């Protein structure tokens, strides 16, 4: 991909309103008595339909940031109590018009169910369920037990459609253990998309795959993004993959160093 293409893509993305806005995000984990600071005041924006790649070394806080964006975790309070006076920013993770740091647990659950799709490096499929059930479970969670019953046909049709599109229509009744790595990741992507989210968060989706399979997974993601207008935030430590996105955010020692 040439530098010119990259610049054009970035310009087109900047023209839209940010769908996700992060300000002053800190995160420190406790390992026993030891405090391990991971993020030190991250600021970033992600625009509608944009593909942002978060690049960084192992332990740089990429996955932590992704979890915060997805509402799986909450950021710490700003350690600088006089942040306003010092010109620093208040802690904020805003998705569209919702401030995630102020959402209740229930509202965060709804946010994850309705607006976000997660794709993990190790697929994280439920081993007891079939391929189709692994995909429809997202719909089940979103609609609840009774809602799922009334929407069952629609959800199953959509799951089947996604799996068919990913070339897995012959694998619907198989268990994850019977699939290859690439197939499992495609099932995981289908699961992430079952509720038609506007934001896809992918944590090294090709990290556990060989180069060829990884490339095919990327093709799937790129195609989806193009067709569905998905906003994509992808974590990777692979520079070549990162360069395929609209914009690269480098995380170094818990701070953003935007490319």
């Amino acid at each position: 991909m040439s530098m010119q293409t990259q610049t054009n893509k970035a310009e087109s993305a900047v023209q839209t309103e940010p769908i996700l806005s992060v300000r002053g995000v800190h995160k420190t984990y406790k390992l026993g008595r030891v405090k391990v600071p991971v993020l030190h005041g991250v600021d970033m924006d992600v625009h509608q339909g944009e593909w942002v790649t978060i690049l960084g070394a192992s332990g740089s806080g990429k996955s932590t940031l992704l979890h915060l964006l997805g509402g799986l975790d909450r950021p710490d309070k700003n350690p600088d109590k006089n942040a306003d006076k010092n010109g620093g920013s208040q802690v904020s993770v805003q998705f569209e018009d919702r401030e995630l740091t102020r959402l209740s647990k229930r509202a965060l659950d709804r946010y994850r169910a309705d607006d976000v799709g997660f794709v993990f490096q190790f697929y994280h499929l439920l081993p007891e369920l079939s391929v189709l059930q692994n995909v429809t479970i997202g719909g089940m969670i979103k609609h609840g037990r009774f809602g799922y019953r009334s929407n069952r046909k629609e959800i199953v049709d959509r799951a089947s459609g996604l799996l068919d599109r990913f070339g897995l229509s012959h694998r619907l009744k198989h268990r994850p253990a019977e699939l290859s790595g690439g197939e499992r990741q495609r099932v995981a992507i289908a699961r992430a998309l079952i509720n038609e989210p506007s934001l896809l968060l992918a944590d090294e989706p090709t990290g556990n795959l060989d180069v060829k399979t990884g490339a095919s997974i990327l093709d799937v993601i790129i195609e989806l993004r193009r067709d569905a207008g998905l906003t994509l935030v992808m974590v990777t430590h692979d520079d070549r993959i990162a360069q395929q996105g609209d914009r690269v955010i480098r995380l170094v020692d818990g701070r953003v160093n935007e490319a």
Partner: protein
Amino acid sequence: MLAMAAVLLSVATILITWSVMGGFLKTLISSGRTLVGDVAIVWPNVGFAHYDDLIERLEADELIDSASPTIETFGLIRLPDDRVELISIKGIEASSYSDVTGFVDTMWWKPIDEPTPKDYEGDDIRLQPENISMFTDMEASGISMTRLNPSSGKVEAAGVLGIEVTGQNYRTKWGGYYPLAPNRAMPDGGVERIETFMPRDGEVELTILALDSSGHPIDPVRRVIPIANEFQSGLYEVDQGTIFVPLDIIQRMLRLDAAERVELVRDDQNPFEIVVDPETGEIGPKMKEVIGVVPARVTTVLVRGVDGAELEAVRSRIRAVYAEFADAHVGEVPSAFQMENQIKTWEDLNRTMISAVKKETGLVLFIFGIVSFTTVFLVLAIFWSMATEKTKDIGVLRALGASTPGIAWLWIRYGASIGIVGSVTGTAVGYWVVLNINSIHDWMGRTFGLVIWDPRQYYFVEIPSEVEPIKAAIVFVIGILTCVVGASIPAIHSARMDPVKALRFE
């Protein structure tokens, strides 16, 4: 599967234990009631007079079906093999006693109306066609408490003996009896075989210590009583230590029968006055003069309430009737105040036995309850292990938007499902085992030689095999709750799990 099997086993165990022990208690209570009726009015040893009047007053009450006079005392019995044992003697009026109690049904030597498979299997002698006629006669003899004396050709008053008293009736493993011919030691050191079958030609000798009206002992009285039949109440203590004797015989022996009240005469004007005995015609000096009659007495009046009457209501009505009766015979019968605690229900009379079995049942249930309670911990341990194993899956579900209560509900629902399936199968297995417990027991005996319930040692021929639906329902619900409680702690643990930590769990 493991948790389900644990629930199944504990539900089935509790249901079987509760049903069998409950059935045991129920049968015991029923047997204890058989020879007592509903309520007994008791004035022990010296008894009370005018009982006919009391019975008449009682039977006039709408809550009371019938009443019967009896005498209860103790004495010595000499058996055909010359053993002398202590025995409980009940003097009864056969007819009225049968109205109040199940006396007729307890008669053992009689044709069997509805033979059970065990009767056929044990080749019960009462089923043999050549014996039917004899047993029919014996039944009639037992009910009327009379027996034909073959040598005199006269019908004599006779007693009905507990089936276990003589030791001459061998109890088979099918619950029937087979009469034996006992041996008796002879003075010359030899042994004589006694070819006696008690209801046919057996007799016993009773020795009773009579009391006077003030309760002081008089002379011992002995009398030979022919045996008309033998009874089996189902309570071993009763069957091995009780004899029924016609009331009038016991009244005479105890000097509780009606007697003339006399007064010594000393006529200073005519010391040579003579009287002629109307029976013998003998002439003698006038020594006494009849001044009245002392009425006959009984120690107990047994009462049966009308069907469906509350026991306490019957007792309270009896107290009221007795109060009127006592007012009518002041000075001749114990006062209503004295009788206050002497009017006893059949439960009072069997309280020692019933409370012992109740406590035993409670204790066994408690022990099994504790054992079954471990199912909660078993389910908890299994679910905890599953929740740990599924930590990453829980993280995935949280990432997909599952809520905290949703995750908890998932485990609880799973626990409840296991509880329902385990309880349904456990209840079904428990039901099946209880309903077929006697067949299973017989099969175990035939196949493995394992006999737990030997009718020779227990009161009842068969193991109680009835399941009360309410008990089954309680055990069923407890089985489900056990699983839900066991699953709750892992459920809460899972639900409170940090989704990020769960996703990173290795």
